[in-house]
């Protein structure tokens, strides 16, 4: 049995510091993320969890269904999901 008290405190402090650091860095990079294309949003969001899926793997109709699934799973906004869908269906 280990004493978890120190571990918890340390982890919380590190996590908080990490979050504050990222919050401070966010405004500096904000301009770079504005008005992104569907392909850029695809790279940013889909690549966060899994390897690339090629647009040619699915038909337009199936991409639409998969994007609805991924919109819910990855918590995308409707606008971003539609841009990614547009990219996938214009490149297949």
């Amino acid at each position, binding site marked *: *049995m280990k004493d978890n008290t120190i571990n918890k405190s340390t982890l919380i402090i590190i996590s908080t510091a990490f979050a504050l650091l990222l919050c401070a860095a966010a405004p500096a990079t904000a301009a770079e993320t504005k008005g992104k294309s569907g392909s850029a949003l695809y790279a940013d969001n889909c690549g966060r969890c899994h390897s690339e899926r090629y647009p040619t793997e699915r038909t337009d109709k199936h991409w639409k269904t998969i994007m609805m699934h991924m919109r819910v799973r990855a918590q995308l906004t*409707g606008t971003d999901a539609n841009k990614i869908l547009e990219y996938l269906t214009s490149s297949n």
Partner: protein
Amino acid sequence: MNTGFKRRVTPQRSFLIAGIAALAWTFSIAVVAQAGGPGVADTDVAIDQEIDALKTRIEKLESERAEERDSNRRELKKLKDKVARVGEGDKSQTDFLITGFAQTGFRDSEGSDGSFAFGSFNPILLARYRDRVLFESEIEFEVGENIDGVAETETTIGYMQVDYIVNDYLTAIAGRFILPLGTFSEKTHPAWINKMPNGPLPYAGHDSGLLPFNDLGLQARGAIPIGNTRVTYAAFVANGPSVATETAPAASTALGSAQNLAGVGPQLEFNSNISDNNSDKSFGGRLGFIPIPGVELGISGMKGAYDDAGNYDFSTLVLDAALQHSGFVDLRGEWIDTNQETDDGDIGRSGFWVQGAVKLGGIPSEPFQDALDNVPFLRRFEPVLRYSEINSDVQGDDRDQLSMGLNIYLTNTLLVKASYDSNDGDDEHGKYDAFNAQVAYGF
């Protein structure tokens, strides 16, 4: 009549006249030659040919440009049609497809003989109705052993839910859904996404998992853009955990995890509370923050009564962080804390895991990539390192694990994974090394 004047022609004058005449003759010949001789005709032909060639060239260019214009028009129309379809919605109102993943493998650990694992087949069924409603379900088929050690086919519902897209920022969910606690369960547990053949200790698919995987209830989730950052949220109410019984033993599949407190306190059953055993529902959710692309931070938790009388709560708090860089570096981790109230006081268990992976083919170093040119297959390699730990208030329940892994991507969704786990624990039972290999495919 003779005028008496007689012009006198001298020899010098004669020469002068003759010279002028010769010069005039020569000049006239030159003029005639220049105006209509054979050399003039040749030049005209060359000029005409050049003009004809230029005309042909212009006509060809005009033709090519017209073709290019027509091609661009066709492409533009095609794109406009596609954009219109995306904007207006596909004419068909429904769609059904099967996606998912499958895996099989081999495991050899100290104290037991190496065995080929049966693996699992996890189809995900998606049925869409128009643009707002989606029925989705992950079903896991695998072969396990029952309490008598006899092999039997197991079918597990990972999730079975209906999603309703309320607006750009909100989706309502009803059914059995993966609980939004951390990100491993929700987002990276599929075998073709998980970078190790097994899960980290807090999610180990045996009787030692810290967190519930899924539950029955209602959920609201979505994302809110704030400036150029994004906040994600999920809030749920569900039946919550119950107490494991002989007829409803604690789950032990890859999709389900149950908490075993080494005989201290009631053993919890997280995933089979079909009919709620008490009137107190569990509540929880996750708040995520994506400050810049490639970085995600989250905090999540849940709380709810687990006993029939509704007197004792099970609660958990999870912090998660993930960082991806340029598509080849993947760092992620979670810290998990749980608490179970009992007659004899609270029992706390916690754990964490951190994992780093690097795809060799993506390392942006020219000398390194030049070196890989000699063995291009190495570009498909991805070394992985993971450390996970579980700590408990219960004596003898602490464990940690260091895993070294290697993934080989045969395609973007078909990979071979291998790992060597070094396990340590409070008791001898938890000290062993193991080798795992797995073939995983996302379809």
